[in-house]
């Protein structure tokens, strides 16, 4: 299985996310994550989809089937161009006076931030590649991770050209 991040530009209209996610499920495509948000253009929403595919033909099918949706304006496979991939994760980790310093050290090494603290826990914010996120999760496991919230992967290509002009 190979993973790719697709940047899907869609009309900013109600029901669009239903159309996109509905298509993915009925065509039985495997997705790792999906996220959506506003863009520099108020009429356009960008949906970031991380797909897992067996081969190029399946990838071609995902792109072509998504392309058929009326509200889809443009699809670019950022896995095929030089691009930066990030994911934001919030981690709620069990913490005590004794363990706080160790947790902080780990968070610093991974260049994350502690954004909330209570006598029993901390909330850590960290961005990065999935490899990095998996690594910090592994390190923090010994303190007990209470809860994880992940945005899924988003990506931008390197250089000045935006997806809409690719």
């Amino acid at each position: 299985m190979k993973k790719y991040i697709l940047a899907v530009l869609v009309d900013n209209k109600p029901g669009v996310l239903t159309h996109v996610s509905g298509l993915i499920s009925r065509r039985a495509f495997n997705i790792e994550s999906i996220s959506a948000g506003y863009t520099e253009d108020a009429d356009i929403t960008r949906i970031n989809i991380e797909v897992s595919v067996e081969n190029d033909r399946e990838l071609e099918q995902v792109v072509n089937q998504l392309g058929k949706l009326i509200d889809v304006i443009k699809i670019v496979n950022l896995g095929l161009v030089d691009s930066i991939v990030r994911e934001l994760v919030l981690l709620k980790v069990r913490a005590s006076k004794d363990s706080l310093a160790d947790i902080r050290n780990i968070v610093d090494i991974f260049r994350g931030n502690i954004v909330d603290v209570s006598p029993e826990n901390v909330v850590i914010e960290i961005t990065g590649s999935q490899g990095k996120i998996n690594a910090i999760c592994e390190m923090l496991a010994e303190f007990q991770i209470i809860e994880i919230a992940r945005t899924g992967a988003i990506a931008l290509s390197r250089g000045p050209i935006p997806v809409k002009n690719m």
Partner: protein
Amino acid sequence: MNGAQAVLESLKIENVDLVFGYPGGAVLDLYDAVYKAKFPHVLSRHEQGAVHAADGYARATGKVGVCFATSGPGATNLITGIATANMDSIPLVCFTGQVGNPYIGKDSFQEADIVGITTPITKHNYLVKKVSELPRVIKEAFFIARTGRPGPVVIDIAKDVFTAELDFKYPKQVQLRGYSGDFTGDKKQIDTVVKALKKAKRPLFFIGGGVTLADQTELLRKIVAATGIPVVSSLMGLGCIPALQDGFLGMVGMHGSYAANMAVQKCDLLIGIGVRFDDRVTGKIEAFASKAKIAHFEVDKAEINKNVYAHYPVIGDLRWSLPIFAKEIQAVSASCRERISGWVDQVLDMNKKYPFSYTVNKDYIMPQELIDTVSGLVDENTIVVTDVGQHQMWAAQFFNSRNPRQFLTSGGLGTMGYGLPAALGAKLGQPEKKVVLFTGDGSVMMNCQEMATAADNGIDVKIVLLHNHVLGMVSQWQRMFYGKRYSHTLLSNRTDFVKLAEAMGLSACRIEKPKELKARLKKALASKGPMLIDVMLPANENVFPMVAPGAQLDNMVLGGTEE
């Protein structure tokens, strides 16, 4: 003007001359506008009947079919019909009422999320919550339904939108950033096919419903005549090439002809035109046309390489690609004819040796004999509509379709109950043409309420009922693959279809003996007005040839009657 009037005004601008539908609470205001405007409308007896009728109307005329239904159950009753149209790429615009804006999302009376439900089975859909959006949405819906690869579009309209006032202005053009409606492709792809054709020794055309949808039959016939390349067809492509034309090998696939299936397996260049390589066509996909390079003319990019790998794809509207192809092959047609003459002889010989066949019985009317007889009795402009099952396959095999838009059948979804309402829609769309429905005692019951629609509106369709007291196709599979365990496929003898038809207001007759078949059919088909012709048949006849599910195309059971 209010929203309801705006809908009808928009329909007029889109040249819609007939709507099928069924009223209800959420569309009361729309129906009030229909009443006041005397807008042409046919009342079905079930929403499913309305949507199939709109579909039959669209297939027979090439226009966009339109239907109305109310919210909740009215709209959910459309689902099977929308899915049927979606699978066969039929242009429909379905208007459904939705509960009023303040009630949406509250599980209100007769509320259902129709946009959510129809998303997987429509080309596009809309929920209209503001009356100002209505003209734009309707304009877009018709544009989307009929351009490119056609398909059904649903417009779900909140009840209060129908009564809200607007300053009606119908847009002249659509502005969709993600859909231009322009399906012009890359000419180089066509050059590649022509180049391949120059070298091919055993080329074969494989045509499908896309040819009809793009209205390219005339041009296709010219291309076939010029090159002499033999043709096989999918179920949806029947009628594009006249059934009895030399070089036409008939339907390909699970119940395709021996010659068609063998030709696919032996050819060295398979040129698919407006087809999607359905599993009922290909059989075992790895073995499909394994000796051939495949060219694929197709408007929908996502169909390329979906089921089979296309060596030479031609992506674009057939209205664009076929004229260029026709022009480019002029120079190579003569040499092509010469080079392939041995191949043509070979396939014609196979077709002559192994035609679709059956054994006449002096005690029973054979189903194939019935279709054969009807085929000989009606003129070339007759529209045949089928339901789904054995009779559908026999109709495909034994009815000689001679023109496009005259063999209407639920190919992709295989919807039992499609036939009767679709036949009514076809007749209303083409009142000058005779419409004959082939149906079974299983299928007809799935929408038999539409006999009342036929009777009340005097819609002259001839319902030929292949009455064998069995759910034929399923029982055939049980006979062949499930040790003759006829689980719930045997129908009782108690239903009297003649009485049922008469009770609904149709005329009806019953034919039981082979020797009276032709004369009585002739009389019945020539009569005026809607009629049910109940033809009694034996229960144990199989549809052959048959490629068993998962088998490769040249592995056919040629068959005979099971004792």
